[in-house]
């Protein structure tokens, strides 16, 4: 359920679906996202520049010279977007991951915090069927859940200035894959050689919200030899 709409500065609004982060909440977010995207395409509303779904929120950015926040808020409140159909994804994507110590930068901190050893952390990560909640941060980066409760950990107090492409990180019940070298504050546990995003392909992002991801452990040698098609 849409709980609250608030302004973000003068050129954005956020549609808040409550504090619960689970598949059901996320599906509500995607429903409104689909509706806004459709309304922009069919020109039922003007001036919208971007719409960004996350776990429990949809953020809409607009061109202040074209439309104001009160017009968009009114548009959403007067629409019956719940009738939009959302086909459930059945796609399962297997992603190779190498847990070598060269890649698993934060494993020591996790061992201390979780009181689990390296092997236990890896096996808990591998046995999870991950749901794709959203794509973002940088192009094509998926946010996956839900991690085993025993692996929950906060993000770093000071984000790293640089994290390598393909790094796999965890924070709280979530897991992510850095699709580009970028700054970031997640606990890094391994790296994948698999390319999830390519701007030159029609389907630029391999994963979409609602897909399922399974990780598969590979050796450092397999990592080096891996080829993206």
């Amino acid at each position, binding site marked *: 359920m849409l709980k609250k709409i608030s302004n*973000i*500065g003068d050129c954005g609004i956020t549609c808040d679906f409550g504090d619960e982060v689970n598949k059901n909440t996320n599906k509500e977010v995607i429903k409104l996202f689909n509706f806004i995207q459709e309304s922009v395409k069919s020109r039922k509303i003007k001036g919208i*520049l*971007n719409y960004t779904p996350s*776990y429990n929120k949809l953020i809409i950015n607009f061109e202040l010279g074209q439309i104001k926040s009160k017009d968009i808020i009114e548009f959403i409140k007067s629409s019956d977007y719940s009738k939009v159909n959302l086909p459930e994804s059945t796609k399962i994507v297997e992603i190779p991951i190498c847990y070598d110590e060269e890649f698993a930068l934060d494993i020591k901190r996790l061992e201390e915090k979780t009181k689990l050893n390296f092997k236990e952390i890896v096996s808990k990560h591998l046995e999870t069927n991950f749901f794709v909640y959203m*794509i973002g*941060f*940088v192009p*094509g980066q998926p946010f996956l859940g839900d991690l085993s409760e025993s692996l929950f950990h906060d993000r770093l107090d000071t984000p790293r200035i640089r994290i390598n492409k393909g790094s796999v990180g965890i924070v709280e019940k979530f897991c992510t894959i850095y699709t580009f070298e970028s700054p970031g*504050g997640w606990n890094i546990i391994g790296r994948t050689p698999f390319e999830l995003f390519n701007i030159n392909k029609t389907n630029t992002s391999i994963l979409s919200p609602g897909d399922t991801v399974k990780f598969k452990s590979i050796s450092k040698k397999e990592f080096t030899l891996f080829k993206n098609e």
Partner: protein
Amino acid sequence: MNNYFKVLRPGINSTFQDLGRFGLQHLGIVASGCMDQLSFCNSNKLVDNKISEGALEFAYQGPLLEMNGANALVAISGKVNFNLIKKNGEIIKGKSNESFQISNGDKIDILSTINSVYGYFSIFGGFKIEEVKGSVSTLVKAKIGPNNGNKLKIDDKIFFRKSNQTNKLKKIEFDFDKDNVIRVMKGLQFHYFSKNSQDDFFSKEYKVTKLTDRMGMRLDGVKLENTVNKNIKSEGITKGSIQVPGDGQPIILLSDHPTIGGYPKIANVISADYDKLVQKTPGTIIKFKLVNLAVAENAFQDYVRKF
């Protein structure tokens, strides 16, 4: 005959930009686009282009470009120290915010921006650069945009469209806003911060640090105390949001910002003050002033009159 500029020195961060790439933030693709919209549009206006035409953005030190081909009308906007080096070796001191003619063999040497960060270089008729998903903006971190998503490199060739039309030279009276007060609205997690920190944020000074680029501006000042939670559930980010990670030092998210982030946001810079903000050089002391939506919307009306 091909008309192009040869890059003899690329400059620090020279990229093609336009007004941005929109409608893809849900795939993690940020709008990007020029940092200082007014200066960007000025450079196009000076050469009679449509204001959204792709231009070359440079930061601090710009490129040294050698022109090959037909005469062209060009302009540099912002506050920029540059020279036009004629083919015969004569050096003419350049004037920013005035269009000028250049000829085959001439060089443009963009030495530095003056007490500011970004400047723009436009050519009448536009550069021959490839659109990616509807925009010529460059997002270097993700290699998206013309020139394979890269900054200019030495020996690159920048092709431009030839034009036979002769244009009048133009001039725009321009100066940056020297005021260091940045107006903001309360952020979504404003209430996460202690009363003291909320007061500090609007009364204490913050210094722009060297850790500033097209993605964000890290500030240095009084540590902001978060009394609720240092993390939030990652949510979509808007340009100009001011996030505060666990170390309590604010970061203003700029044009190449991440599309989603998990740090609480104390405030958002209003649209009218964004250009002013991004031109502040490291070491500059800024202060934040709280305004409401009505003030921000009115300020925007004043801002668009400058275009």
